[in-house]
């Protein structure tokens, strides 16, 4: 997958951009939405869909498999083989064991799990997970996504994905969940627009990549950028939602800035001190730097859920 040529990506991107310029929804030059007048329809039936579809991320966080956290048990890891190699702990540089996908595909990369699995505050529904889940709903780390070139929600061999930060807060309902069909503006700074991923939809599952995702957030005291490079995304496209995973490379330096330092400053609540954190970072499984002979990044998998939204400038 990662061998896609740059020229092909660029061509698709330019094509997408041209299409996007002409795709406006009812009245406001926005893309996306569902069901209502002038909006897109969901999957199902013929699978017909409008060209551009907007979403707002309604849930986001590190992937926490439900099964045995030691090896993900039989469920496997719903990620990607980011380095196109079935690796093992004795394969330098950045030696690491890979995981197996639910369909049996080997070589799934999720190096950060070696750190996440060790500490209670990093587990599902604990401190970090809760903070991130809240942040995507309250505007501290809100994210929107646009699917382009979608002719058929079930099977389409040429679609694009682009992810943006937004300074708007999603609308939240009485149940605390993000409501569909809100209108949110893409971040005005193009720095927080991802590159455009190209891919396809097969049997209602979209896969696209590689692309670089740059997000801006300001969660409590942490004002930071997050860059996920060489990323891939997989989404199950439902009638009213999209859910799946976003996997990519996250630098140790940013992990320290965003999680390591702020969390370890919370003392016992963090469950680890900064020295322990830095030790855990030694297990980085990607981003080999020849000059320093160090691995500078972790392969990371985020789970995400999204609901339809209208995206504006």
């Amino acid at each position: 997958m990662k061998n896609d040529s740059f020229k092909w990506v660029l061509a698709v991107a330019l094509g997408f951009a041209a299409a996007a310029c002409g795709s406006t929804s009812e009245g406001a030059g926005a893309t996306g939405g569902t069901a209502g007048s002038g909006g897109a329809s969901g999957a199902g039936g013929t699978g017909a869909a409008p060209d551009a579809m907007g979403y707002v991320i309604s849930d986001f966080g590190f992937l926490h498999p439900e099964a045995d956290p030691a090896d993900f048990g039989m469920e496997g890891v719903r990620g990607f083989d980011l380095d196109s190699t079935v690796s093992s702990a004795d394969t330098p540089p950045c030696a690491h064991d890979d995981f197996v996908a639910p369909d049996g595909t080997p070589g799934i990369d999720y190096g950060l799990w070696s750190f996440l699995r060790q500490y209670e505050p990093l587990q599902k529904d604990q401190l970090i997970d809760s903070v991130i889940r809240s942040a995507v709903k309250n505007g501290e780390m809100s994210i929107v996504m646009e699917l382009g070139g979608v002719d058929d929600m079930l099977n389409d061999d040429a679609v694009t994905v682009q992810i943006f930060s937004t300074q708007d807060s999603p609308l939240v309902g009485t149940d605390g969940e993000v409501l569909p069909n809100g209108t949110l503006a893409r971040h005005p700074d193009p720095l927080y627009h991802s590159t455009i991923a190209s891919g396809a939809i097969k049997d209602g599952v979209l896969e696209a990549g590689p692309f670089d995702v740059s997000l801006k957030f300001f969660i409590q005291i942490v004002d930071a950028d997050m860059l996920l490079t060489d990323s891939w995304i997989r989404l199950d496209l439902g009638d009213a939602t999209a859910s799946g995973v976003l996997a990519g490379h996250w630098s140790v330096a940013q992990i320290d800035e965003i999680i390591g330092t702020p969390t370890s400053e919370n003392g016992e609540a963090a469950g680890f001190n900064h020295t322990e954190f830095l030790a855990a970072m030694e297990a980085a499984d990607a981003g080999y730097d020849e000059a320093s002979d160090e691995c500078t990044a972790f392969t990371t998998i985020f789970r995400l859920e999204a609901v339809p939204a209208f995206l504006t400038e």
Partner: protein
Amino acid sequence: MKHYKPGSSIAALLAVVVVAAGACGGSDSSGGAPVTEGGPVALRRLTSQQYAQSVHDVLGERIVVPSRIEPDARIEGLLGVGASFVSVTPSGFEKYEAAAIAIAQQALSAELRGANVSCEPASPSGSDDGCATEFIATTGRRLFRRALTEDEIAMRVAIAASSATELGDFYAGLELALASLLVSPNFLFRVEEIEADPADGSRNRLTSTSVATRLSYLVWNSTPDDELLDAAESGDLLNTDTLAAQAARLLDSPKAEAGIRAFFSDLLTFRRIDEGLVRKSPTQFPAFTLTLAGDAKEQTLRTIVDHLVTQELDLRELYTTRSTFLTPSLGSVYAVPFGGGAWGPYEFAEDGPRAGLLSHVSLMSITAHPGRSSATLRGKFVREVLLCQDIPDPPANVDFSIVADTSGELRTARERLGEHVTNDACAGCHTLMDPIGLAFENFDAIGAYRTQENGADIDASGNLDGQSYNDAIGMGQALRDHESLGPCMTRNLYRYAVGRNPVPGEQVLLTFLDERFADSGYRWGSLIDALVLSDGFLTASGQREAEEAVQ
């Protein structure tokens, strides 16, 4: 906001008066209107909105008016009519008293007294009868909507003086005097007084101050200002030219928006939203937040004000217009792009499913159950509120189980309600309501658009008294064209203005008013003008007997 042009429609009406008077013997001085006698007058308790608006107009917008006062009563579909049939309970009086004290404390606080008391007391720590008299007479006139009698002033000056001396604070004394004004029946009730008509001793007319009060609460939903009271106390207000000019002045004021909002809020039962009575299942309809409910009401009121006042358009087109105003939360339910965080104008798409007030979240939510839509409630609303047709109450032993079971074999409301028409006891009324309400089945219990219910396609077609339609858009057009729509609005505004249902002899007047309304192209200002100058507004048969039942 664009306001009525001063005297524009009044002037046109007066021109017609002159022509009509010359051409037709027997018509009176109100534009060819039939000579009728208004029905009985009664004490009309201020609605909670009128209470708050009056306090704000007299004592300043910064006064926080307590909301816990005697609740309003809706009778014959209007709080404006219910106000004529309610009194003050002992517990209600306690609430009014507490509110009066709270208001008086604010109005005479160090921060606000400068704006409310025009004179300086001789000493802030003692009594000053002169300054107290000036304040009580001036403020009391606005609150009582007439000049106070000498006794009414003297009694309160004495209260202010003794309290100021006792408390060593002039303004503390004045607080008690102001509170006594605010708990007086002369403030809490609009006292409509009548007198023999000097032009026709066999008839009664409202006194000029009573006319001023009727006019002010109709147009502003608040107490008359000094200029209107001056015209009333001089007697000039009973002169047709003066009345027309004052009506035009009030209609041209920015305060007129509060008046039209109050009427439509009353008619469309928006108080239910204010009081949190429009509730939806939070699990089924998480989008129905308090913010959304408030925005929904405001959307409809903004649409009405813009359509009728700013644009001066045909009232009937309120049911077909695609122009409206949105917020982001409303945009989410309507599934249309609308960002920015503030109110803004919006045009529903020509090929979209929405047009007219009856496609708004507000009315679709009010006329629905917490967990499902209700074709019956929606049909009843159209018949009763918009067409003024009576629908009898259901029998006490009616079985709603089939209609309420949305998870059974009968998947759509049309299928479930079909059971009603097989039951003779139900069919008589449901055949009047359900076909109308089914036109709105594409809107769920909060007004969100849907094409299916329980997986079955929704059929929104129907027929309104001979005019067929395929969906809510067509239903809105059929309603716009319905012969009863205009007369019903005339009747509702008349009832709101005089605080009662029309008496039999007034039907000829209503017919005349509706003809004038139609002649104007159903312009709101023309209807107000014609109504205000009519005998129904200015005359009365007498005081309503206390025991008299609702007509």
